[in-house]
């Protein structure tokens, strides 16, 4: 094996070392019962509960086979909230980045709102929307709005005047200039904003579902705490992490598939 091969091998394996070591530690700690089982479940138990949660027969236990149902409930809430945030945040951000008057109108208000931690909205959202779907969607949309808005704004602002002028000169009218010049030129920032927004959507989904909704991945975690099923809590955390990661990759792929500029500039 020559040096280049070794380097590639090292690069591929490096990211896996830390998870592997952590898993090994967890295994050793649990096997020797250094930490009591009610604080940290055995990885083997987590694996069994996980398989049961995903594949088991729904009739046979509280958590068996619930995954699909919970996943569907959660992903719908995330997508609704995220879509709402995009539909409002993206156009407003682009406008605010290009037009000084819009920026002056919105800038300080939105920055003040942004300073309020998202959790603070929870009690008010519960009063307005009750427990469940609407509250969760509201929280997700609110949280995802800011990264989407701010990045679209920054992206639109940094588009060089020369590129816009070139578009005008080549015969683009106002509307075409937005779709064919402004948005593609701002695309790297827009993509960053959407991905950040998607990430934070999952965080606020769990917050929204912690309040006693019957279904959803966040609800399962909270429910499992009440019943002392910490193995299920860990299963939920791992699943949310995995699905969040998949959503990010999926979103990025989708954007690259749909937009030349996303494909070529990011």
């Amino acid at each position: 094996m020559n040096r280049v091969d070794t380097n590639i091998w090292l690069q591929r394996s490096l990211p896996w070392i830390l998870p592997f070591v952590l898993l090994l530690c967890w295994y050793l700690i649990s096997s020797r019962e250094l930490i009591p089982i009610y604080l940290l479940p055995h990885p083997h138990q987590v694996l069994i509960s996980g398989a049961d949660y995903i594949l088991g027969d729904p009739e046979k236990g509280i958590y068996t086979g619930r995954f699909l149902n919970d996943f569907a409930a959660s992903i719908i809430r995330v997508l609704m909230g995220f879509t709402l945030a995009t539909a409002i945040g993206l156009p407003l951000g682009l406008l605010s980045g290009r037009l000084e008057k819009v920026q002056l109108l919105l800038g300080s208000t939105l920055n003040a709102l942004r300073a309020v931690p998202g959790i603070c909205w929870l009690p008010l959202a519960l009063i307005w929307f009750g427990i469940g779907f609407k509250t969760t969607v509201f929280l997700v949309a609110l949280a995802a709005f800011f990264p989407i808005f701010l990045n679209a704004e920054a992206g639109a602002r940094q588009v060089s005047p020369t590129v816009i002028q070139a578009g005008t000169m080549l015969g683009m009218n106002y509307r075409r200039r937005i779709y064919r010049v402004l948005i593609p030129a701002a695309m790297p920032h827009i993509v960053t904003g959407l991905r950040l927004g998607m990430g934070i959507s999952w965080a606020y989904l769990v917050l929204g579902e912690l309040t006693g909704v019957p279904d959803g991945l966040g609800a399962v975690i909270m429910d499992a705490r009440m019943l002392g099923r910490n193995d299920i809590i860990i299963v939920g955390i791992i699943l949310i992490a995995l699905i969040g990661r998949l959503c990010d990759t999926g979103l990025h792929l989708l954007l690259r598939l749909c937009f030349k500029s996303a494909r070529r500039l990011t």
Partner: protein
Amino acid sequence: MSRQHLQIIHSRQGTAPEPVILEVNRLTKGYISADSEQTIALKDLTFNIRQKEMVCLLGRSGCGKTTLLKLLAGFLKPSAGDILLNGEPLSHPGPACCMVFQEDALFPWLTVKENIAFGLINNPMSRQQKQQKVDQFIELVGLSGFGSYLPREISGGMKQRVALARVLILQPRILLMDEPFAALDAQTREQMQKLLQELRRQFAPTILFVTHDVNEALLLGDRVLLFDKNPGRISHDIKVALPQTRAVEHDTFLRLRTRINELLKDE
């Protein structure tokens, strides 16, 4: 097409003048700066450009050359005076007055081919015709084989070739060039100057070319306008009585250069 060429070359050598295409009358542009003081960038500018003529605008940096081009392109509105294109006042920016910018005005998310085809979107030609035309212009500017490259993958000189092709393809009535070769190295600049001369022979566009390089102005221009600073105005209008193919070593060339350098020093 080829007969037209002969006529063009002939008429340039002959005496019959081409009609005036661009008329600038007492053009003035002032700015209000941040401390609300007024600065006059251009004052009472008056000049004409005839069809198929190449006029070089020569002056030191900061004398308002770029402001003038932006006014002519329609990106800025004059404070006073008129700009007439074919006898009609210039309204809004568009393909009639196209600009080749100094650098980095290509669309970075589009390939060379797509950049050149960009302005054709309003053109009723069929897709296939457009394709053919784009290929033809890619070849004209010497970029055959680079059609599918992105701007970031090609050199500065090649980018300016794309910038030239994407405006020439629209057949603008007047081509504005804002120090288009200033950011290139000496050799590439020379190549680009040759290319521009070649394109002039083929298309005979009307060109207003801004530069701060005396050699470049004398190599390319039919006329050289000297620009004066504070406020920006034209101090001299010099006809370049040189043959089509010019050499820097030519006697007349050297004499003109010495004279222009003296004039620029005086200002």
